[in-house]
């Protein structure tokens, strides 16, 4: 046991050096945190600065016009993006959700490990690779770029995202509910649908929304699949315009008008992603209450 008094030992300790170390630590972590926010702020500022001027009613109601004609808009690309997103959700959400249910409710440890590993690898597949594969498997046999192939390319990208998040939210459902339902003699599939999924449904919707927001801005998977379209899409087997594709096409063009429209398109696109993320925040907050 120490015999020195508290006061004496405290005085021996070098206060100044400790304070400096503390200040360094705190300020560097605050600085890093601010650095995370900075790019988002810059992006938003720049988009508004460059794009806001080109946003008018025509932008939302008209299809693209030739350079020089200021009447052009991105109505077909906005609608096209939603069509592609809807198609992607139709493809990706059921497979991701059912796969997540399998991992959480049925699978055995060995197989689950393999599935999770595959999902993580899939998640890391570069989006241009998806585009080429879907081109080879769908676009070539169908003899044309199409809404269908674009939606499927995006949907495939959604699967691993939805799968892993669904599994996570289902695992969080306490086992005591499953046991209570089992003890009532309720069939396994009904327990999963009516008790487990019903308890976690907000988390699952969140998973789909987050994955949707993540793929909404993808350009590469659409390059060889949806292809883009200067007019309205007329069918599942027809090429379709999408915001990211339109932005890309306009941004690399030589016309000042089109550049402005590209900025406006980017602003609209990030606005949509923003809205999805905010609604996700809203939903998760409600769940905590």
């Amino acid at each position: 046991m120490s015999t020195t008094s508290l006061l004496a030992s405290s005085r021996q300790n070098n206060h100044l050096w400790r304070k400096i170390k503390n200040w360094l630590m705190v300020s560097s972590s605050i600085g890093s945190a601010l650095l995370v926010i900075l790019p988002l702020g810059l992006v938003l500022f720049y988009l508004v600065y460059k794009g806001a001027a080109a946003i008018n009613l025509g932008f939302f109601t008209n299809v693209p016009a030739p350079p020089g004609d200021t009447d052009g808009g991105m109505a077909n690309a906005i609608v096209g993006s939603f069509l592609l997103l809807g198609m992607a959700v139709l493809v990706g959400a059921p497979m991701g959700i059912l796969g997540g249910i399998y991992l959480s409710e049925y699978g055995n440890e060995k197989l689950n490990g393999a599935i999770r590993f595959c999902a993580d690898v899939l998640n890391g597949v570069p989006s241009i690779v998806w585009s080429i594969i879907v081109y080879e498997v769908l676009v070539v046999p169908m003899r044309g770029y199409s809404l269908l192939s674009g939606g499927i390319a995006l949907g495939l990208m959604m699967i691993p995202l939805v799968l892993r998040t669904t599994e996570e939210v289902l695992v969080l459902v306490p086992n005591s509910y499953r046991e209570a339902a089992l003890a009532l003699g309720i069939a396994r599939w009904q327990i999963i649908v009516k008790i487990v999924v019903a308890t976690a449904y907000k988390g699952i919707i969140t998973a789909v929304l987050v994955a949707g927001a993540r793929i909404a801005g993808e350009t590469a998977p659409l390059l060889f699949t949806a292809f883009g379209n200067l007019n309205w899409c007329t069918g599942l087997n027809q090429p379709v315009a999408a915001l990211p594709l339109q932005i890309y096409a306009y941004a690399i063009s030589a016309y000042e008008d089109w550049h402005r429209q590209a900025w406006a398109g980017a602003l609209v696109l990030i606005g949509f992603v923003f809205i999805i993320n905010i609604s996700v925040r809203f939903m998760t907050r409600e769940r905590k209450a």
Partner: protein
Amino acid sequence: MVPKIMKDEVAAVNNEEENVQEAATVSLDVNDLCLWYGKHQALYDVSIKIPANKSTAIIGPSGCGKSTLLRTFNRMHEVSPGARMSGKVHLFGEDLYSPEIDPTILRRRVGMVFQKSNPFPTMTIRENVLVGLRLNGVRDKKILNERLESCLRMAALWDEVKDHLDRPGTGLSGGQQQRLCIARAMAMEPEVLLMDEPCSALDPIATMKIEELITTLKTKCTVVIVTHNMQQAGRCSDFTAFMYLGKLVEFDRTEKIFTNPDKQQTEDYITGRFG
């Protein structure tokens, strides 16, 4: 809806346990039950005849296998990975572990209430009580409403909740939630109700209410209650089984166990010398 399995009246024939049986109908008949979790053996040769329409308490120190034994009565132990058992359990003469028995059907007839109350969080009070019936295909509004009221009355909860049946079940107090779980289990009209330390998370007043309930419940079904509270066993059971280290030490009328047990170990536990 539920296939009616024949109810055999099992006459008590074992002379050695004459005083226990007293010609009462046997509800659950357990023979030489051994159970392992992986390599660890949790139950050793347990044999017990649980009389029908009585309440039977299973007491013993923590980890003695009382909850495990209870869970073999509705095959809930099968949910635990690595659990395997040998021996027989008969419910009114029928072998629960016969390969043709569907555990889902069995569990409709052997209900269970857990240590921690667990009403389904997405459901209202009404839905919680009726979920078992509804998911098993009962659609008739009249039957459902009757069952709702009778079960909530049986669980002594009706007067407290009758004006807000459509509020979430998780909004009730701890004791009310546990009674809601009892009503939910009773809605299936089980032949046996298993209660796994149903009061261990409750305050004394909520505990008292549930103990009082047991008297009502045993007119409808056989009650088996696991408890680590000896006073509770004394207050609310007709028969008591004392378990220690995975073995059934003694099973007899509750008065006998608490006043004049046959085994020294039982006496030591009851008088508080260990456990």
